[in-house]
């Protein structure tokens, strides 16, 4: 019965975007205060430029050898997360930071975390190059992977709609049912993934979607899943698909 409920929510949310546009989906940038928006649009003041510059250096030093054109790789930002497998391992959902970590592993045999400054710098650099591109998450071509992808989407939808934590809140309660309302001095946004990685003022640094989702879990006082866990990837896949068609904002700042 639960599966059916999730499937129907998923069906509704995904397919409602093929209906005439009565639902206007707004990116989180439209929920920023005037000061934050001014900072976001200030090319000198926006803190993300520091990471974009760092990403550019890393790109020139490491990535150009294999990936010549930044533009064609930038489209990866709006296509990820994808289903991928490594030699002998089962397929699982990879997001853009996972892919960058894998690439770094090939070059330097290092195993970095999603919050490593180099990983974030490259992710932000790619995010900046993908500005304005529409999000387009596709299911895989291989039949076997199609089924796994569907299962991951359903799991993501299930997480999105289930109540959790001491506050006993589900994601959908705030991010669908209470958009625009105040949570103390925060204004609830619809939580579309159009601007990750973000510079969050409370972190005083940039962070990935992985970190932001974990912060959400801690916000409702639920057990925080560990970084790179499959639960987080399933949720991210669902959220990215939910943002299908929206234009990529590029690196953004948040409170």
């Amino acid at each position, binding site marked *: 019965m639960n599966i059916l409920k999730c499937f129907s929510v998923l069906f509704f949310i995904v397919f409602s975007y093929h209906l005439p546009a009565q639902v206007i989906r707004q990116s989180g940038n439209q929920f920023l*205060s005037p*000061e*934050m928006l001014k*900072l976001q649009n200030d090319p000198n*003041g926006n803190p993300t430029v520091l990471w974009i510059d760092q990403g550019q250096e890393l790109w020139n030093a490491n990535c150009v050898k294999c990936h010549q054109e930044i533009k064609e790789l930038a489209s990866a930002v709006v296509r990820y997360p994808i289903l991928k497998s490594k030699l002998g391992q089962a397929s699982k959902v990879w997001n853009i930071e996972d892919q960058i970590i894998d690439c770094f592993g090939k070059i330097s045999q290092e195993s970095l975390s999603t919050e490593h400054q180099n990983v974030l710098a490259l992710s932000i650099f790619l995010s900046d190059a993908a500005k304005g591109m529409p999000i387009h998450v596709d299911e895989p071509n291989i039949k076997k992977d199609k089924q796994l992808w569907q299962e991951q989407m359903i799991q993501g939808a299930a997480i999105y709609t289930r109540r959790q934590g001491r506050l006993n809140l589900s994601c959908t309660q705030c991010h669908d049912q209470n958009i625009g309302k105040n*949570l*103390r*001095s*925060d204004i609830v946004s619809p939580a579309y993934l159009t601007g990750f990685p973000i510079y969050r*003022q*409370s*972190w*005083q640094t940039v*962070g990935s979607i992985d*970190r932001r989702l*974990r*912060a*959400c879990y*801690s*916000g*409702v*006082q639920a057990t*925080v899943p560990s970084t790179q866990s499959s639960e987080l990837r399933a949720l991210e896949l669902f959220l990215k698909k939910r943002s299908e068609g929206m234009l990529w904002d590029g690196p953004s700042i948040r*409170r």
Partner: protein
Amino acid sequence: MRPNLSRRLLLLHTSWLSMATFFSKDVFSQSNVDSYSQKHLKNLNLKSEGITIEIPPLADTGNSIPMSIQIQPTSSAKVQSFEIIAPENPNQMVLRVTLPNPQKKLKMATRIRLALSQDVWVVAKLDDGTSIAQSANCVVTLNACFDAT
């Protein structure tokens, strides 16, 4: 022989232990001094002409608040040094700037952190030995949700 820690003894030990941590609280406080307290700064009764502070009255985040200062003394004296003070911060001295060559006019901007809503003070020393001071109030709002990451 099994040690028998009576309740009174336990209370005694926890009380001196907690006092010890109280005194070590300011171990990294750079400048938690009376001269930087709100009361003291107000009591100095320094003239505020010549200093302009621009700071949002309601800040989105306590972590990064844009602030700009312009110091242009109305008298013929020049600015020698100034301090930005946040009396309610754990480290009250936010920025101290000295100018080896005193200037007629100084304009600068930066981003500061405020632990809670308070008056932010700028106290400037002029080269004739006098000081001027100005304050501006800033209300700080915090994030709604606890972030454990």
